């Protein structure tokens, strides 16, 4: 991080990420909140790029900004009371206190930890390196993750289908 451009990019992206994350909680409209969340995801993807992790950055945009947020939007649109806003949420004071505590803990941990510096050069082809890592040393966690996802999918289908007798 000795390059000036990278430092500037880091602070700009960090500002985008944090402000939009804050706006998720502050704005009243639920759809606006999701859109700010997407902006925050994209800011995080930018941060990954400053770390030369281009594969993770692109996947962040593809999965979080592209797929997950779309699912959230769909869920909001299909909810009958999607017109309601954040003002209707009770417990906002205790939740803010909780969120503040979590944030404070994270900052404390981040400041306290002795971060290990990466030795040596970065990967030139991150995608190939990640692919080899996933399919050679980490093949078991990788496959277990896919099994977990399948279980979640089957569970969702069973929940949606309702009981045996009724139609669809």
């Amino acid at each position, binding site marked *: 991080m000795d390059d000036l451009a990278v430092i500037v990019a880091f602070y700009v992206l960090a500002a985008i990420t944090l402000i939009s994350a804050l706006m998720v909680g502050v704005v009243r409209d639920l759809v606006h909140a999701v859109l700010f969340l997407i902006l925050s995801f994209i800011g995080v993807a930018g941060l990954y790029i400053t770390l030369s992790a281009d594969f993770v950055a692109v996947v962040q945009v593809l999965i979080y900004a*592209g*797929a997950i947020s*779309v699912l959230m939007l769909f869920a909001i649109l299909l909810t009958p009371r999607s017109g309601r806003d954040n003002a209707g949420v009770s417990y906002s004071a205790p939740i803010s206190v909780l969120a503040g505590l979590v944030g404070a803990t994270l900052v404390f941990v981040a400041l306290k930890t002795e971060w290990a510096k990466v030795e040596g050069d970065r990967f030139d082809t991150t995608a*190939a390196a990640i692919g080899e890592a996933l399919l050679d040393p980490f093949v078991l966690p990788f496959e277990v993750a896919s099994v977990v996802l399948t279980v979640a999918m089957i569970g969702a289908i069973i929940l949606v289908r309702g009981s045996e007798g009724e139609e669809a």
Partner: protein
Amino acid sequence: VNLIAAWYDFDPFHELYEWLTDHTFDELTYVVIAVIGATGILSFVGLGALVNVWLERRIIGRIQVRRGPNRVGPFGLFQPVADAIKLIQKEVLQPTASDGKLYNLPPILVFIPAMLTFAVFAWAPDMVYADLNVGVLYLLALSSITSLAIFMAGWASNNKYALLGAMRVIAMAISYEVPMVLALLAPVLFAGTMSIPGLVDFQKEYTVWLAFLLPMPVFIYAIAATAELNRTPADIAEAESEIVAGFHTEYSGMKFGLFYAVELINSLAVSGIMASLFFGGYSLFGIEDYIPPWIIFIGKIYFFYFGLIWLRGTWPRLRIDQLMAFAWKMLIPLALINVVIVAVEVLLWRELELTDWVLAAYVAINAVLSVLLVGFFFRMITRDYYRLPRRVRLEHDISVPSLPAPGVQPVPSAGDA
């Protein structure tokens, strides 16, 4: 992310690059070359949007046996310019109940992914703006951003038709993203790289277009991309016969113009992806040594773009349930099976270190398998239709009522209608 600073297909730029590296410092070289490259790409895209309006209207006119625009300038060439001036002059209307800033954002936002797509294309050897090693994934990520912007447009308009269009876009994006990703996995598996120049180099090295090796992914990608583009066979997001103009119902003037331009630019981008992933990019079996490769690449882009126009001019619009069913029942299973086939082939080829002649065998095998699989799935999908009785017959025995006695009026029953 490295910028490959060698646009030396254009000789003066190469000399400029060398002079800059020799006489100035690296940052300046980087900036100057990046600005020149970006200007080149953006002018191609901007000019392309103008030319495409004319091309599209003229060719569709030709297909539909009418003339198309032919009054403004020679062959009507200045019609897009006149249209643009008209659109800029129009009054900017904004519905009072619309969602303020969110309403004005999408026409700008859709432009960003459309422009960014062109950054990773290989226009010629060493003529790549950004050689990302995750190029294919990058393209997919951008296409998902476009549908988000379109959703924002539909939501912020605060119009029922616009919202319906937006929901259709989202539904279609979810459905067609899956076969698209699976189809693009096949060339990546064969070439062993995700960078676009890498894929083109693979096709050049083995003198075989991936389209021949992978006939099925080509068609799956072409169909899925047309759906994501929102062009006529699949433009259910703006289906004017059903929901007025879909997501851009409330956009007038240049805001509508921007949506329209982005649609054309995205068509160019999809043609470019087709050309570079499946049809050899800038290479044309050795001819690229005599003709500037970027001309070959642009030629290929416009070849596929012509195909898209042809589709638009001839096909009727599909219904939304037909489109969804096609993605989930046909494209996704086919793409999944195809990924398994390709993975086995690549594994055999790489692990057993077979000679490269095995690629010729794969061409034949994949062609036969694709025809068989597509035929099988078509039979599966259309089974219900073919099971319909071809001529009138009795499903089960019915008791024939005895004829009423002469003179008695038969009582009409509900089934008579």
